[in-house]
């Protein structure tokens, strides 16, 4: 047969991205780029009050605005049975448009449909709503007193949403009690927002067949289809969800939002397509906040620094509705990863969540369901413990690491860690950063009163939700899927249940298929985001694409290969059992000269398949046997200006272990981006509410995203411990840098300030916060 060169071996290569040509030429197609004939625009009337009764809504003036076609309110939707929307995990419900009262500032009150974007905005301005303000509950500590009941609509007459716990409560308490050393610290992970540069939006249309065509910025289009069928009663076959190009998601585009339901209702009511695109203010104030965990961390240890026990009690602020994006059985997500990279012999974690008069959310912002909060808590606490014990922060970590020979490691809080080599990863980081030299420099500077800090974070993530025995959303198990068709010429298409928002799936999925089948990745088209064509999948968030869909793609490709083997046997004129897959080709066992390429087999599958089934395609629904556990060792070096409080990140090194790497270019890009978001969270990002429930960060002049000027230079390195259960050994990487880095930054700042007696600072570490800490120390008051 042919000796044509194969094209496999592309896994692990820095292949340039296939999706880029359209983006660099302005040919990306984002949802706001879609214009349909006769399309109307929707604008939303929002509440200026955080908690108020709605005494009246008058739409008559709005209806007089030229171009306005209709206005709908909560009453209208309620009458149609669409007043409430189940939240992400189905454990609560959320008003689509306010019914009776509003529960947070900027809550959706009415929707206006008009001929143009401007007319819709004018119409929204003209809707007259009268409110009678009610007492505001602006924090979970006030909420838990239950003096003001926020959700009388619920059966449980309390602001307490749930109590969740995991681990050995009594054993941990006893172990803490008898520990020679104990530290405790309240650590707050502030409310922040993913703020992708493209806001959320949709275009809803009922086509001539009465079928809903729904274009939407969704990270999980299939889940949307099912959720919309449940909410609206439209049969699922009459719903077609399309996620076009997405301008960043970071978890913001996972839940179904009230605006989407309103747009669909408008399209149905008016018989015309309806577009709704969030303004930036709407985005920051109403969809997709994250974190807001107040974590009381307690750690016990021996004088040698070996941890004996850990307890974390968290008070969570969930806002007005429990819309947290977590798997149904895990209201606090993967918070059980809070023992981190350490072999903690006794542990107990609990979370109590409360309603407040703030926007709903609790989405997994570049994070596998509360892993960021958990990682931050343990990594921050490790430094406090190191400080208390007088042990070097890196050394303390090393003494407590899960050892290489302990895998699969069963954590006390219920996870089975797949693989890792924390010692090697940390050592690489210390060598690369020149730790000994840095310590020497720091000691010299401290003598001179200069503030320099070195901060570590040696985190472990848990991603790739997840195994069906544990994980579901609204009952739908969290598998993912792939379907591969190889065409006669050896080109092909792979479709998956995921949806890229910049992660580069069009390239990396093609690389997996090409690697498994010995084909050219340039001619493997990747399609995602269309529920009519893609197999059912749970979508892209929580670093699950590569761990779950990546597995499905590899296994679907192997099914294709098994089909191809039969045709190859026919072409090689031997029995199927005499054919082996070697060097990206089929070969007669023991006869290296007798080979046939996949490209040749593909052609034969359509032209000369003998008695075999024609065609060459397969699909696979992958139910992962376990989660994957990416890890890393991050080091931040900072200098602080004693006079101004300005923190300069001089150096930052990220050593990541994400298992097998599909495309190092993409992995490095993901790490740079995640570190930049971690930097933003550590130093600038907060969705802050005043005591009256007013949102103080409603646009990009108040909610700060780092620019090219303040973003540090990132250095990266890697260790690779492939996941033993994943088909190609990959673990996922998109979120590691965002999960791991905040603690490194904060630890560096606190380390710099430690000679002044500073033990802890809550994020975001703004210049004035640092300045105040320095001044307070100078006048003899120790902060935190």
């Amino acid at each position, binding site marked *: 047969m042919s000796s044509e060169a194969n094209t496999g071996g592309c896994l692990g290569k820095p292949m*340039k991205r296939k999706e880029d040509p359209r983006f660099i*030429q302005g040919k990306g197609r984002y949802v*706001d780029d879609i214009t349909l004939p006769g399309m109307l625009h929707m604008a939303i009337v929002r509440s200026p009050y955080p908690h108020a009764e709605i005494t009246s809504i008058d739409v008559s003036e709005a209806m007089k605005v030229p171009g306005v076609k209709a206005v709908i309110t909560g009453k209208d939707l309620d009458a149609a049975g669409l007043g409430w929307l189940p939240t992400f995990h189905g454990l609560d419900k959320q008003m689509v448009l306010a019914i009776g009262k509003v529960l947070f500032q900027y809550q959706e009150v009415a929707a206006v449909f008009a001929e143009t974007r401007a007319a819709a905005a004018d119409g929204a301005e003209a809707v007259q709503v009268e409110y009678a303000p009610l007492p505001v509950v602006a924090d979970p500590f006030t909420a838990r007193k239950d003096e003001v009941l926020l959700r009388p609509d619920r059966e449980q007459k309390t602001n307490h949403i749930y109590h969740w716990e995991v681990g050995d409560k009594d054993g941990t308490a006893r172990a803490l009690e008898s520990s020679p050393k104990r530290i405790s610290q309240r650590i707050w992970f502030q409310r922040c927002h993913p703020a992708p540069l493209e806001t959320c939006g949709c275009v809803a249309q009922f086509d001539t067949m009465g079928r809903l065509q729904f274009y939407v910025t969704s990270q999980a289009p299939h889940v949307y289809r099912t959720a919309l069928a449940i909410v609206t009663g439209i049969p699922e076959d009459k719903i077609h969800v399309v996620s076009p190009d997405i301008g960043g998601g970071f978890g913001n585009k996972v839940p179904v939002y009230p605006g989407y339901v309103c747009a669909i209702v408008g399209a149905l009511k008016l018989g015309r397509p309806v577009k709704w695109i969030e303004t930036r203010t709407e985005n920051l104030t109403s969809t997709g906040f994250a974190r807001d965990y107040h974590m009381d961390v307690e750690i016990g240890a021996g004088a040698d620094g070996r941890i004996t026990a850990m307890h974390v009690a968290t008070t969570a602020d969930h806002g007005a509705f429990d819309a947290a994006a977590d798997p149904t059985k895990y209201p606090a997500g993967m918070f059980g990863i809070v023992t981190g990279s350490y072999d903690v012999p006794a542990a107990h974690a609990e979370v109590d969540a409360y309603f407040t008069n703030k926007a709903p959310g609790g989405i997994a912002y570049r994070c596998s369901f509360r892993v960021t909060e958990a990682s931050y808590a343990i990594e921050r606490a490790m430094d406090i413990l190191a400080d208390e014990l007088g042990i070097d922060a890196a050394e303390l970590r090393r003494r407590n690491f899960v050892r290489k020979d302990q895998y699969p490691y069963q954590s006390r809080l219920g996870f089975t860690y797949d693989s890792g080599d924390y010692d090697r990863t940390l050592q690489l980081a210390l060598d690369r950063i020149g730790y000994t030299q840095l310590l020497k420099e720091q000691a010299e500077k401290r003598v001179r009163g200069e503030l320099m800090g070195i901060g570590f974070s040696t985190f472990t993530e848990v991603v790739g939700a997840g195994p069906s025995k544990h994980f579901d959303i609204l009952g739908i198990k969290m598998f993912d899927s792939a379907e591969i068709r190889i065409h006669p010429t050896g080109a092909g298409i792979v479709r998956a249940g995921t949806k890229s928002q910049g992660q580069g799936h069009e390239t990396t999925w093609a690389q997996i298929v090409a690697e498994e089948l010995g084909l050219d990745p340039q001619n493997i088209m990747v399609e995602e985001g269309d529920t009519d064509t893609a197999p059912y999948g749970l979508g892209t968030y929580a670093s699950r694409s590569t761990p779950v869909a990546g597995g499905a793609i590899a296994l679907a490709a192997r099914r294709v290969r098994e089909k191809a083997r039969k045709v190859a046997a026919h072409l090689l004129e031997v029995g199927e059992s005499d054919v082996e897959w070697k060097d990206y080709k089929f070969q007669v066992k023991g006869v290296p000269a007798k080979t046939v390429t996949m490209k040749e087999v593909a052609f034969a599958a359509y032209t000369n398949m003998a008695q075999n089934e024609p065609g060459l395609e397969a699909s696979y629904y992958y139910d992962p046997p376990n989660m994957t556990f990416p890890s890393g060792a991050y080091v931040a070096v900072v200098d602080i200006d004693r006079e101004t409080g300005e923190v300069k990140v001089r150096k930052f090194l990220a050593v990541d272990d994400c298992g097998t790497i599909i495309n190092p270019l993409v992995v490095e890009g993901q790490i740079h981006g995640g570190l930049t978001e971690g930097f933003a969270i550590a130093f600038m990002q907060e969705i802050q509410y005043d005591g009256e429930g007013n949102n103080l960060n409603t646009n990009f*002049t108040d909610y700060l995203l780092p620019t090219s000027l303040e973003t540090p230079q990132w250095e990266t390195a890697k260790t690779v411990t492939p996941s033993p259960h994943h088909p190609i050994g990959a673990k996922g990487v998109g979120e590691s840098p965002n999960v791991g880095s905040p603690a490194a930054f904060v630890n560096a700042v606190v380390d710099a300030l430690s000679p002044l007696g500073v033990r802890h600072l809550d994020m975001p570490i703004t210049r004035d916060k640092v300045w105040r800490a320095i001044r307070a120390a100078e006048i003899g008051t120790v902060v935190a």
Partner: protein
Amino acid sequence: MKVKVTVNGVAYERDVEPRTLLAFFLREDCGLTGTHVGCDTSSCGCCVVVLDGDRPVKSCTMFAVQADGHEIRTVEGLAEGAALHPLQQAFWDQHGLQCGFCTPGMLLTAYTLLKHNPRPTEAEIREGLAGNLCRCTGYQNIVKSVQQAAGAV
């Protein structure tokens, strides 16, 4: 009001409301959707276009009527014919983009930066791009892209 502009060498004459922002004029009246709107407060730079050859403007901060009689270049007009502009090529080569939403504004800001300063230092590039936010890349590869296009790498 009547607006006459030349966009990427093509003359457009449209009747618009005076309050129409240039960004929406380009997107909705000219059908050039490569110009994006990301923030409404001229913070993000996704909407940057080039006015009269070398001036970067945030088109969400300019009324369409203010552009009357001017020449505009959008991302759709960056390539000369079939070949990619060196900046486009560099962003592709250096992985200077991920979701692609900020990319048009980045490219055009970088284009004007290089017009005024063909051999910028890294610090000058970072300063020059400081009006454009990117949420995906951490800027490092964007800086490298601009350096490549400037012939500096």
